[in-house]
């Protein structure tokens, strides 16, 4: 199956170091209620009325051509390509492997932005081609996780452990929703999990919730169920930074 792409974002500066190009793939195993890219949840093409228009089928040559246009900026800035979505790791495995090999041949460093909710067998063969993973952790309680994302977190946590054991560089990214993911108990559990498994991420990014995606639901003909979500205040955010830093984690930052 040929993956669909909703957007190729150039001068992407919040999804990994330097100046990057981020490719957004369509289709995700999770359906987070706060998702700000709902158009990337379904694997199917849907008609929706935003400027990006209908998603297009990824063709590796075309994609590489677009990516290579900004090579000089990756070189100068220590940037590269970030594969995101949706969930890139839920896309066609052969396609992904081929794309990653081509990027490796061109010496372009790749980051993968993932929710982790895929079988580890899909991830393992890609490891040698990926510079680092931007790995989402949301809710540490599996039932709560299921309630808000449509799926438990067992696979996600297990994959994170295995990624660490296999030597991958990992940045943890946490969408911060007031009273939900952003509460001391959730962060405590996150710290415990990471420590118990000896996971030392390259950095932890706390991403404050924003509702810029809410309008997209309407255009997709869907109801937005996240009206009650809000971002924690900046003082509260600072508290979490302190909490994580005090627990011994490096590069804890607010924002991407």
């Amino acid at each position: 199956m040929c993956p669909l792409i909703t957007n190729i974002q150039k001068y992407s500066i919040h999804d990994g170091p330097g100046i990057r190009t981020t490719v957004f793939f369509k289709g995700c195993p999770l359906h987070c209620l706060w998702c700000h890219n709902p158009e990337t949840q379904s694997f199917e093409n849907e008609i929706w009325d935003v400027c990006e228009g209908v998603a297009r089928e990824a063709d590796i040559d075309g994609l590489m051509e677009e990516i290579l246009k900004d090579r000089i900026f990756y070189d100068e800035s220590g940037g590269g390509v970030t594969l995101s979505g949706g969930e890139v790791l839920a896309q066609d495995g052969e396609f992904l492997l081929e794309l990653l090999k081509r990027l490796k041949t061109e010496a372009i460093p790749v980051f993968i932005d993932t929710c982790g909710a895929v079988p580890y067998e899909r991830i393992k063969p890609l490891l040698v081609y990926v510079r680092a993973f931007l790995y989402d952790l949301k809710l540490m309680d599996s039932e709560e996780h299921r309630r808000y994302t449509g799926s438990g977190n067992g696979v996600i946590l297990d994959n994170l452990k295995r990624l660490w054991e296999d030597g991958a560089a990992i940045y943890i990214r946490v969408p911060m929703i007031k009273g939900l993911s952003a509460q001391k108990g959730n962060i405590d559990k996150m710290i415990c999990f990471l420590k118990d498994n000896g996971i030392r991420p390259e950095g932890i990014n706390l991403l404050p919730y924003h509702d810029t995606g809410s309008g997209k639901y309407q255009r997709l003909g869907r109801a937005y169920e996240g009206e009650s979500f809000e971002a924690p205040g900046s003082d509260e955010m600072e508290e979490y930074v302190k909490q994580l830093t005090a627990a011994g984690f490096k590069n804890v930052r607010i924002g991407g």
Partner: protein
Amino acid sequence: MEERGMNERIKKLRRVSMETAPHIDLERARIETEVYKKYEGKVSVPVLRALVLKEYFSRKTLYLGDGELIVGEKGNAPQASPTFPELCCHSEEDMHVMNDRELVSFKVTEEDIKNQVGEIIPYWTGRTVREHLLNQMTDEWRAAYEAGMFTEFMEQRGPGHTCGSKKIFEKGYLDYKADIEKALEELDFLNDPEALDKKEELTAMSIDCDALCILGERYHELALEMAAKETDPVRAEELRAIAANCAVVPAHKPQTYWQAIQMYWFTHLGVTTELNPWDAFSPGRLDQHLNPFYEKDTAEGLLDDERAKELLECLWVKFHNQPAPVKVGITLKESATYTDFANINTGGIKPDGSDGVNNVSYLILDCMDEMKLVQPNSNVQISKKTPLKFLKRACEISRKGWGQPAFYNTDEIVQELLNAGKTLEDARLGGSSGCVETGAWGNEAYILTGYLNIPKILELTLFNGYDHYSGKQLGLKLGNAEDFKSYEELFEAFKKQLEHFVNIKIKGNNVIERIYAKEMPAPFLSIVTNDCISKGKDYNAGGARYNTTYIQGVGIGTISDSLAAIKYNVFDKKKFSMRELIDALEKNFEGCEDIYKAVHEESPKYGNDDDYADDIMRSVFELYRDTVTGRPNTKGGEYRIDMLPTTCHVYFGDVMIASPNGRLAHKPVSEGISPEKSADVKGPTAVIKSCAKMDHISTGGTLLNQKFTPSVVAGEAGLDNMAALIRSYFSMDGHHIQFNVIDRQTLIDAQNNPDEYRDLIVRVAGYSDYFRNLSKALQDEIIMRTEQSFE
């Protein structure tokens, strides 16, 4: 008004400079008129010009403001603007207009008007360069000029566009005088047919040395007098130090850092009082020139960094005290600003090719940051060897949003200069000044002569040479648009029209250059410009080592998208016919929504890293470059091109009907080499890639504006990415890039509430200006420039 970092002295001086209204000062004009009445016809023209400067510096009202450490004003006080009736003699009506106009106004008193009408106008009417020049122009030239096909820089202001060199800091004017005397002695009246001309020119230079020394002596005496009366012992000591400085410079070479700055300032006054050259005058690599004095004084304990910065800030105030001379008519439209385009260059490389950044470079950046003034314009020159620390410090200031410093690519500029035939050493000593124009500093007269309205040449090509604005047949009759059966035929016709207008412009330039060479020599500027003394020849007559004449192309974005829209829709896709497009243009797209949508939204656009449009941009650029470059000027040099607009893109748009890319009638054309507004939708990397497809090295400078919202460049990562963006553009041989970091909403607020944004400074073209001082059309244009934002 925000005031950061400055000490009390500087705050006060800056306030005086900011709060004093620019005003006309007729003292120079009156003294000049007396000198002309007394000597004209009795002495040679160069000597007459030198006598004007000497008499003015001998008699002018001196100003030495409270707290000043660097002294000297062009006129009688800060913000005084002497007039130059020998170039352009303002009518009584002009005087009222300059006083009453809303923007870029100058206070004129009743007495000024009385003097202008009583003394100045009667003498100068019929004698001005402006009249001589316009009288010599052909009907063809005049019609094209009045229709906005091109502008003419020398119509009201003298040729300039040059920078000083190290020499200014290494020699006193008595030393120059000795050189001049020696050159006079060596004149060969037996064999050299130009010996007499050389004698007159050299004599004039010698008188000008005296003129500057007299100004220095007068300040020496004034400071002593003031010290004697001063009750504050600290200020009295400062005044004695100023007096001591003025006893050394400008007659002798400077001994200290303080004297070095004072020396530059005296020289600056000499150049800008003699004539009113475009781009005033600039010190060149100020950091490298000052560094030996800084190091010596610091080692001897005479100077610390606070003092070094304070003295720089005093110099900054001096630059800011001098509004550009009053402009009227079309020249005002093309360059509506008080800014006089003096431009401080920092960084770059040394003559041996090594990195040029030193401690003074960082002090200049601090000074720029604290002073936040529109003048002097300031830039950094970035080479491969420039430390990231310096680049990032410059980015840190630039991202504060007011457009300074601009960033220039030293390595590319060296290649431009080598390509233009300079020696490697002269190339390394050179750089960009004014807006973005390249020259061999201290060694070259590189004169901007006017803007060329490239999109309008296409407009005329589409209408068989007919101009809607003037209602005249201005271009060649090469057929109507629908007669062109292919894109290539259309392009061929455009090529012929372009040549036609470039020829008209150059024919005019050839006459104007000779008028200046004969009637308006600049012996003072010739003293400090290398080879004028040894050749016995004036700066305006080819005396400099190198002599380049520039014509600046405007509207590359608009024309590229226009040609792309025609090629794509009319010839490739056959969406509509040329006739239908032409009708739409004449109707300003009213009732032609389909065509408008096709050309405006669905056609390839320059600025998106799309080869379809970018290849067209290259073809137009190369055609323009090859039409101009290499033609001989009258000074033994050649023509070259720049791609910069100042504010001319607004004027050029105003004289046009709608363009095939969907630009509506009378709206500005694209500025610099930036894409047409809102045409670039793929972000800053795509813009930079598109712009880099132009061969910058074969030009004399290009100008690229980028507008960011503050969030894009926030934080340490934002700074790193900004630096990387600049490095990327420069590694692709981009010439220059500058940033407006400000969100659209702020600009709209500022437009609606100008009083609340009195200190909002934005980048316009090769300079920054107060937003409130810009015309509504230019404000709109800046608001509309595509904003790069990625959340």
